[in-house]
């Protein structure tokens, strides 16, 4: 393996088991067992033997239709699910911007939620305390920081989440749909921050349905179809093929 590999997947398969009937209860299971009817399952591979490698500092887009496996791919990279087969390797700290404000508690204040969300992202309380002012400042909602989050607009929640997740430069940044956080001003500010991190060596992974924005941001593109890699190449080649298939 090259030294500057940021993400590497070797023959990764993620298999979901779908029961044909819905049997989530012990009662149902017992009844079935008594009747000697075994439960039938079918397997569904959300990802099928995926292999690729991304070098540090590259920007890679992921495209594909709904159900092609894009979200599953991001989940397996960000460690939420473990691959059924194969190996996922990741170097450095990953900042998943898929779930801005994961773990936010609507009853708590913005300030308390910065600590909570920070802890969910794996930071210690001390870490967050040191960077609190900077986070509040970037979010631009310092006037409301001691009000409960339930009083926030969805834009404000997303801004706060973005500010916490990106306060420290991550080694890998995972973005779902090109960020549309908050108003035009904040969008500019967040895009600038992502761009700056990329300039400083962060690897960026973007999922999007919009070929134009992928073309703008990414150097390479992975095209997923039914859990397989249909194409992986430089952005222009893949997007041209992809767009030609769109109606």
């Amino acid at each position, binding site marked *: 393996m090259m030294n500057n590999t940021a993400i590497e997947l070797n023959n990764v398969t993620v298999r979901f088991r779908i029961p044909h009937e819905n049997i989530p*209860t012990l009662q149902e299971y017992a009844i079935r067992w008594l009747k000697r009817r075994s439960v039938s399952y079918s397997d569904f591979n959300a990802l099928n033997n995926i292999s690729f490698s991304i070098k540090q500092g590259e920007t890679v887009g992921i495209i594909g239709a709904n159900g092609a496996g894009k979200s599953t791919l991001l989940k397996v990279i960000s460690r*939420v699910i473990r691959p059924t087969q194969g190996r996922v*390797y*990741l170097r450095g*700290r990953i900042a998943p911007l898929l779930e801005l404000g994961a*773990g936010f*508690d609507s009853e708590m204040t913005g300030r308390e939620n910065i600590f*909570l969300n920070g802890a969910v992202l*794996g930071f210690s309380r001390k870490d967050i305390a040191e960077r609190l002012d900077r986070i509040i400042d970037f979010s631009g909602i310092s006037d409301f920081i001691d009000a409960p989050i339930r009083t926030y607009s969805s834009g404000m929640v997303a801004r706060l989440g973005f500010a916490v997740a990106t306060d420290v430069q991550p080694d890998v940044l995972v973005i779902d749909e090109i960020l549309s956080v908050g108003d035009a001003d904040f969008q500019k500010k967040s895009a600038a921050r992502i761009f700056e991190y990329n300039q400083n060596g962060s690897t960026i992974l973007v999922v999007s349905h919009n070929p134009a924005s992928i073309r703008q941001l990414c150097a390479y593109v992975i095209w997923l179809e039914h859990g397989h890699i249909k194409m992986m190449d430089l952005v222009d080649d893949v997007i041209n093929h992809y767009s030609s298939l769109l109606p």
Partner: protein
Amino acid sequence: MLEYDSANRPPPVIDEFIQLVRYRDLIFLMVENILKNRYKRSVLGIFWMLLNPLLQTIVLTIAFGTMFKSSLPNYAIYLLSGLLAWNFITQTTQYAMSTMAYGGGLLKRIYIPRATYIVAAVGNGLINLLVSISSLVIIIIFLSHPITVAWLFLPVSILILTIFVLGFALLLSTASVFFTDTVDIYQVLIQALFFLTPIMYPASILPAELAQLLTLNPFVILIEIFRVPIYANHLPDSGLIINSMLLAFITLASGWILFTSRADQLAYRL
């Protein structure tokens, strides 16, 4: 530099523990927030925690106190000490199960150690127990029941209970993710077990055959290990200590092994 390699990690039994230690601040914050949320909006605030067991004891003492007047002097203390241990075990496990079954959505959105919710639920239950002990002390002083050196054993009793509760919560939470009706089945079982455990009544009123069966009820020794130093004012005998410790450690070991070996499937199942 941080590295994540899905093919090369410590065995789950160890890995989960390492991750929990790394994310310890998250657990502390979760416990804090549970407490804050519960008591922030009520006028009486933390006094609800004191008031609740007090009221429960008063009602039950009025109802049953006269019945056991001769066999159980200071009935209120017998009752409340048993009740506190019982509530700690059942409420904590129920809470852990429901946060796992209904609130575990975060586990499939972002990586956090899988046992975070369960450990936080046990931490929360432990704080509730410690606060309610102070309402027990109020009653003890009010009834001028002696507080002796046997109280010094109480931290050990609480530790044994906590170890058991953590293991039991891990077992039940794993089951509740795979079978959602575990929560309901457990609820019914607990109601029945409450009357099969000597909490409201002395074990001596049971006929001999039934008393034999009672030794199969694991809750009996757990209630005893907590109640003896408070109510009977002497140390638990060595048999009781050893049995309850064995029960606690075996439960934790099996709960931990079961949970961590299934932890990877949680994100698929939740």
